[in-house]
């Protein structure tokens, strides 16, 4: 029981952490680019991104399920019901959040800092670095919120992971299972662990964020 709990907890951290990392690596540069540049279609991208904040996880899971199933275009990869599929599902859900919030953070910071950097003689590359540096508090918030979304997510990982014991069971899917079996106390305990992980992560990120605000 204890080793099962440890396995479920560690897998939750691994899946959500990796998904957030992957999503951040993809979404932060895109969010910075969209936030800093003026181009046709920017508002369309913004609207799509904000709409995807509310993208139902179960729909994301279903799409990925179809793609990864044996008869789907990515079926040959044999990823369905693996932690990799769960990471992909959560990445899909976190990317729009990190793009949108990074875009907002950079857009808000952009004009004043861009002009200040330009008049002080910075070239385009240095100006972009300055704006991103000044927007870092908002970007850290984007990552924090993204991780929160990934950690709390249940529908998508249930579909593409299958909630297989020792293999793809994470805290949220375990809570669903325990609730179905009437083990409400154990389900609540798992919920407490989930919240604690979130709290520790947010505390660490907040400390980093505060440091970012001051230096």
């Amino acid at each position, binding site marked *: 029981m204890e080793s099962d709990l440890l396995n479920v907890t560690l897998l939750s951290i691994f899946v959500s952490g990796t998904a957030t990392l992957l999503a951040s690596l993809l979404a932060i540069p895109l969010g910075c680019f969209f936030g800093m540049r003026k181009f046709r279609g920017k508002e369309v991208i913004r609207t799509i991104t904000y709409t995807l904040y509310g993208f139902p996880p179960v729909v994301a899971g279903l799409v990925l399920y179809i793609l990864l199933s044996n008869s789907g275009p990515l079926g040959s990869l044999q990823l369905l019901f693996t932690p990799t599929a769960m990471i992909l599902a959560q990445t899909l859900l976190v990317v729009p959040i990190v793009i949108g919030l990074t875009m907002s953070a950079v857009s808000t910071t952009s004009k004043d800092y861009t002009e*200040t950097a330009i*008049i002080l*003689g910075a070239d385009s590359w240095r100006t972009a670095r300055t704006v991103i540096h000044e927007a870092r508090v908002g970007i850290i918030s984007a990552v924090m919120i993204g991780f929160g979304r990934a950690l709390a997510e249940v529908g998508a990982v249930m579909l593409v992971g299958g909630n297989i014991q020792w293999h793809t069971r994470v805290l949220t899917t375990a809570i669903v299972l325990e609730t179905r079996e009437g083990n409400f106390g154990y389900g609540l305990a798992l919920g407490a662990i989930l919240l604690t992980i979130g709290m520790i992560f947010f505390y660490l990120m907040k400390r980093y964020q505060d440091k970012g605000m001051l230096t």
Partner: protein
Amino acid sequence: MNAIQAKGISKSYRERKVLKEIDLEVEEGDIFAIIGPSGAGKTTLLRILCSLQPPDSGTVAILGRQISFKATEDLQLRRRMSFISQKPIAFRNSVRENVAYSLKVRGVEDRKEMVDNALQHVGLLDLADNLGMTLSGGELQRMAFARATVYNPEVLILDEFTAHLDPYNIKMLEDALISYQKENGATILTVTHNMFQAKRIARTTAVMLDGQIVEQNDTATIFNNPTDERTGQFVKGEMIF
């Protein structure tokens, strides 16, 4: 030689014509003030001269080189000039790092002495390690002055650089500006709606009303013997908008 030369500058925002065919010549080494009421188009003109936004028509040459209004092409020229806005902002680091930024982007390695001198010049050396964002309005403006002058720009453009400041900070910045010009022979173009400031610091003054420069002359003549009726009304405070 003219350090700043603008010809036929026009700019409109939607239907509103903010600048109407402005011609401006500022001689090298001059302290030149543009005075005029709020909304006359002064800030828009300065932003165009600094290559921060293009005009609808007209040309600008700084230090004999035409501005293209393309960031990369104007970079070398922009590095020979500087601009201080009415509301400067501090980067999220120390006062020293803020001032060093201008040198860093130019690849200057030995920055400490230059930064210390610039901060000393505006009386901020004691606050060098404080965060830029914790400075008061007057201190922030003085830091912006140090940041803009630490690399000795040949042309310095200021937009209401002492607006909303107390007399102590105004005096300190005006003194710093005049001594900077004397030491470096730089060309200064300042915009102000404070006529007394123009009187105190400028050798040449232009009066800008409703998107046009209505008169330009040496400062004493503008204030004591203006030729344009509107200039006379403005400098005597009799103009009703």
